[in-house]
C-alpha cells in the first residue's frame, strides 16, 4: 500500500520537472490549432512532424494533432501513437510508415505500402515517450469503456500538461459518469495549477483542496515552492491543509487496520494456547513449531495443486485450511500421547520437554525442506486489496485473516461451550477426579483437547503463510508474543485472550508508528510486566480464594 502511493508521488514530481517547458509548447500548440483550424484525421504532414525533428518540435506537433482531432478518438492517430511507443515506425523519403513484422503501411492513410530501401527507425527519447504515453491516455479519455476512461485519467495524472487542457475540457463535457467527472475535474485542476494565468491557478488551487490523493499533496507542496502570487499561495496553503487532514485520516485508519491485522494474527496464535495453556495448564513451547507445521502443510497443498490441478490453483487455500489443521493436530496428539501425558501438574518440566520437541520439529523440517524459506503464493482472490481511501488500501489477505480469526474464534467458543467434547474438557479442567468418577475418559479428553489446540496453531500457520515468510523459524518469532497474550488475557477463558490479542496488536502498531518497531516491542513488553504487577492473573482473572 505505502509503496504504491510513494511511487505515484515520485512520478508526480518527475513530470512536474518538465512542466515549464510544456507550458511553452502548449502556447505553440494553441497557436498552431488556431492557424490550421480543426482537422479530423491525421495528415501525412502531421505524422511526419511527429516522427521527425528535434524533441521539442515533435512534442509540439503531437500536442497539435491531439487537440485537433481527438474528440472523435481518431483511430489513425491512436494507432500511430501506439506504433511509436512500440518502436514500429520508420521514416523514408518524407513519408512515415508503420512496420509490423514484414508488412508496412502508411501511417496517415493506413494503406499498405512497400517499405522503400534505406528506411530509418524513428527513435524516441524518454521525454517523447512520456509525451506519447500522455497522448495515449488522452485518446483513451474518449473510449466507450468507462474502466478504460478511468485508467486513462489515472495515467494522465502524472503526465498531463496545459496542452491537454482543451482535450480534458472536451472529455469533461462528454463524460456522463459522475465519479469520472469528478476525477476529470481534479485532473483539470492539477493541470491548471501550473497554468500561466494567476486567476486560473487560484481557481485550481481551491479545487485541489477537495482531493484526498497523496499525489495532490506532493503537487501542492511542489507548487508552494515555486508560486509567487500571494493570493494563489494562500489558496494553496489552505488546500494543502485540507488535503493533509484528509490524508491523516487515511493514515490513522491504516495504523488501526494494521494493528487489528497483527492483533488477529496474535489472536489466532493465542487461541490455540488458550486451550492448551489456558484450559489444560500445559506450557507448550512447541506451539510456534505447530504453526510452522500448519504453514508447511499449506505449502505442500499448494505444490500438489500446482502440479496436479493448476486450473483449480485458486482454490488451494480451501483445502490447505483443513489440511494444516489435521497435520498440526496429529503432531499435537502424538506429542500429548508420548511426552506431555507424563508431565501433567509439572509445568516447568513440561516447558523444558516441549522446548525439546520444538527443537526436534524445527530440525526435522530443516532436514526435509531445507533451511531456506519456501514460497507460498497467494491465490489470485487474496492478492491485491480493497481501496477504501486514496491512501488506504486494505489488502485482501489481511482482511481474509481478520475474518478467518473471527470465524475460528466463534468456532472454538461454540466448541467449548456447546459440544460434548467442550463439556468434557471444561469438566476435566475444573475437577479431573470428579470428571473421571462420573465416567469421563480423562486421558482421551486430554489428547483431544491438546490436539484441538495444536490444530488451531496449524490454522494460524496456514493464515500466516498468506502474509509472511514460511521457514523453519516461523514459530520462533511469535512464541514470546503469543505467551504474552495469554499471560495478559488471563488463564481459563477465551474472552481475555481475544481482548489481549487485539489490544496488544493495536498497541504495538501505534507505538511502532511513534517509536519504531524495536522500541515499540520493548515498550509493550515493559508495559506487560508492569501490568502484571497490578493484576497478576491477567485482565480477566478467575475469582477464587486460593492462596497460591
Amino acid at each position: 500500500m505505502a509503496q504504491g502511493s510513494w511511487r505515484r508521488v515520485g512520478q508526480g514530481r518527475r513530470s512536474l520537472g518538465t512542466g515549464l517547458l510544456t507550458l511553452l509548447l502548449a502556447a505553440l500548440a494553441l497557436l498552431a490549432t488556431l492557424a490550421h483550424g480543426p482537422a479530423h484525421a491525421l495528415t501525412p504532414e502531421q505524422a511526419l512532424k511527429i516522427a521527425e525533428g528535434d524533441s521539442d518540435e515533435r512534442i509540439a506537433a503531437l500536442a497539435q494533432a491531439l487537440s485537433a482531432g481527438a474528440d472523435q478518438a481518431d483511430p489513425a492517430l491512436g494507432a500511430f501513437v501506439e506504433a511509436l511507443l512500440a518502436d514500429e515506425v520508420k521514416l523514408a523519403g518524407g513519408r512515415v510508415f508503420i512496420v509490423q513484422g514484414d508488412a508496412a503501411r502508411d501511417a496517415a492513410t493506413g494503406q499498405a505500402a512497400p517499405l522503400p530501401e534505406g528506411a530509418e527507425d524513428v527513435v524516441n527519447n524518454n521525454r517523447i515517450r512520456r509525451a506519447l504515453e500522455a497522448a495515449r491516455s488522452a485518446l483513451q479519455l474518449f473510449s466507450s469503456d468507462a474502466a478504460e476512461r478511468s485508467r486513462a485519467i489515472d495515467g494522465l495524472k502524472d503526465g498531463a500538461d496545459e496542452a491537454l487542457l482543451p482535450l480534458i475540457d472536451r472529455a469533461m463535457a462528454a463524460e456522463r459518469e459522475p465519479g469520472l467527472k469528478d476525477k476529470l475535474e481534479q485532473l483539470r485542476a492539477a493541470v491548471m495549477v501550473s497554468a500561466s494565468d494567476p486567476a486560473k491557478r487560484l481557481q485550481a488551487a481551491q479545487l485541489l483542496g477537495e482531493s484526498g490523493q497523496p499525489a495532490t499533496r506532493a503537487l501542492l507542496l511542489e507548487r508552494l515552492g515555486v508560486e509567487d502570487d500571494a493570493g494563489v499561495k494562500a489558496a494553496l496553503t489552505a488546500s494543502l491543509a485540507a488535503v493533509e487532514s484528509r490524508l491523516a485520516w487515511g493514515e490513522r485508519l491504516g495504523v488501526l487496520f494494521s494493528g487489528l491485522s497483527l492483533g488477529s494474527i496474535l489472536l489466532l496464535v493465542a487461541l490455540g494456547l488458550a486451550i492448551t495453556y489456558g484450559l489444560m495448564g500445559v506450557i507448550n513451547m512447541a506451539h510456534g513449531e505447530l504453526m510452522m507445521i500448519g504453514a508447511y502443510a499449506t505449502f505442500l497443498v499448494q505444490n500438489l495443486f500446482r502440479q496436479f490441478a493448476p486450473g483449480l490453483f485458486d482454490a488451494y487455500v480451501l483445502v490447505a485450511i483443513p489440511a494444516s489443521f489435521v497435520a498440526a493436530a496429529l503432531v499435537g496428539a502424538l506429542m500429548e500421547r508420548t511426552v506431555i501425558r507424563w508431565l501433567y501438574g509439572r509445568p516447568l518440566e513440561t516447558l523444558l520437554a516441549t522446548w525439546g520437541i520444538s527443537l526436534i520439529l524445527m530440525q526435522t523440517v530443516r532436514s526435509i525442506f531445507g533451511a531456506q524459506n519456501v514460497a507460498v503464493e497467494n491465490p489470485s482472490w487474496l492478492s491485491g486489496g480493497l481501496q477504501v481511501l486514496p491512501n488506504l488500501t486494505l489488502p485482501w489477505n489481511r482482511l481474509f485473516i481478520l475474518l478467518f480469526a473471527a470465524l475460528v474464534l466463534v468456532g472454538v467458543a461454540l466448541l467449548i461451550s456447546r459440544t460434548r467434547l467442550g463439556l468434557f474438557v471444561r469438566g476435566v479442567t475444573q475437577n479431573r477426579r470428579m470428571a473421571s468418577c462420573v465416567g469421563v475418559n480423562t486421558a482421551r479428553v486430554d489428547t483431544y483437547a491438546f490436539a484441538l489446540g495444536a490444530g488451531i496453531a496449524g490454522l494460524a500457520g496456514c493464515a500466516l503463510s498468506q502474509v509472511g515468510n514460511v521457514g523453519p523459524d516461523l514459530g520462533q518469532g511469535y512464541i514470546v508474543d503469543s505467551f504474552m497474550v495469554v499471560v495478559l488475557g488471563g488463564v481459563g477463558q477465551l474472552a481475555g485472550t481475544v481482548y489481549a490479542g487485539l489490544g496488544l496488536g493495536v498497541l504495538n502498531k501505534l507505538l511502532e508508528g511513534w517509536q519504531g518497531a524495536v522500541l515499540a516491542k520493548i515498550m509493550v513488553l515493559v508495559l506487560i510486566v508492569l501490568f502484571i504487577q497490578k493484576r497478576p492473573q491477567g485482565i480477566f482473572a478467575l475469582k477464587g480464594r486460593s492462596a497460591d
Partner: protein
Amino acid sequence: MDKPLGPRGWTGVLVAIVLIAVVVPVLNLLVPADSVFHLDDFYVSLAGKILCYAICALAMDLIWGYTGILSLGHGLFFALGGYAMGMYLMRQIGTDGQYRSEMPDFMVFLNWKEFPWHWALSDSFVAQMLLVVLVPGVLAFVFGWFAFRSRIKGVYFSIITQALTFAAMLLFFRNETGFGGNNGFTDFKRILGVPIDQQMKVLLFVLSGLVLVGFFLMSRFIVGSKAGRVLQAIRDAETRVMFSGYDPVKYKLAIWTLSAVMCGVAGALYVPQVGIINPGEMSPAASIEIAIWAAVGGRGTLIGPIVGAFFVNGAKSWFTVAFPEFWLFFLGALFIAVTLFLPNGLVGLWRKLMRRGKEGEA
C-alpha cells in the same frame, strides 16, 4: 548447621584445584607440542568456555534446583557481565583498530564523535569490574523486587524472564544502544595492557576454574545454612513457609540477585576467552540451554549442574563437528529424556546405580 563438605568432598575440591591450576597449564604450556601428553590449545579454550557455562549452571541450580524458580532469562545476566567486560576490552584496543582511532571501530563506523554516557567509565578496569557485578545485580534486584512482591511465580515468572531477555536482545541489536549492534564486540587485543595470547588464555582458564570452585564452596555454604533450608522450604511449599512467619520475598530476592551476579561474573570471564560478545547470548534459546545443563546434571545437587554443563557442551562440540545436522535432534531428545526419565539428572542416576550396587553386594 551442616559442615559444607566432608573429608571426601574436600579431597575432591583439592583435586579439582590441582587439575585446574597445575595440571592443565603444565600440559598445555610446558609439555612440548609433539608430546603425547601435550594438551591442545583448542581443548583448553573449550574447557575454559565450559567452566564459565558451569558457573551459570551452578547459578541456575541455586535459583531453580534449590528455590524452585525457573529463570529463562539468565543468559541476559551472563551477557550483561560479558558486555561490561567487553566495553573495557574495546577500550584496551586503543588505536590498534581498523580505523586507528581512539574510538572503537563500530563507533567510528557510525560516525560518532564522542563516547555515549554509559561508556564514561569504560577506560577503568576497576570500574568495569564493579559494573560486571553491579549491572546484573541491580537489574535482577529491581526486576525480582517487582516480580516477587506481586507474587509472580511458577510458569508466569519463567515466561516473563524470557520476555525480559528477549526485549534486551532486541535493544542490544540496535546500533543506537551503543553496544555494537548485532556484531557486538570482538577483536580484543589486551587486558590491563597485557596481550591476550595463549598464556593469558591459560591464566583466564585457571581464573575461571578457581572462581567456579569458589562459587561452588559458597553455594555449598549457603545451601547448608539456615537460609538455605528456608529456600528449599519455599521450593517445596511456599505458602506454608509464609504462614510460618517467614517472608519468602526476601529470601527469593537475595538468592535471585546472587544468582544473577554469578552469571555476570561468568560472562566477564567468558568474553576474553572466546573473544566475542554479541546479542545472540541474550536469545531465549541461550537462556533455556542453561536450564537444561542444570537439569541434565541433576537439580538440587551442586555438583550436578557442573557435570551437566560439561556433558552437554562436550556433546555439543563433538556433534557439531561430527554430525552437525543431528545436534538439535540430540539436544531436543535430551530435553525430553531428562524431564521424562531422569528427574534427578545424571547425578541422580549415578547415585541410584551406586545404591543398587551396594544393595547387590549386601
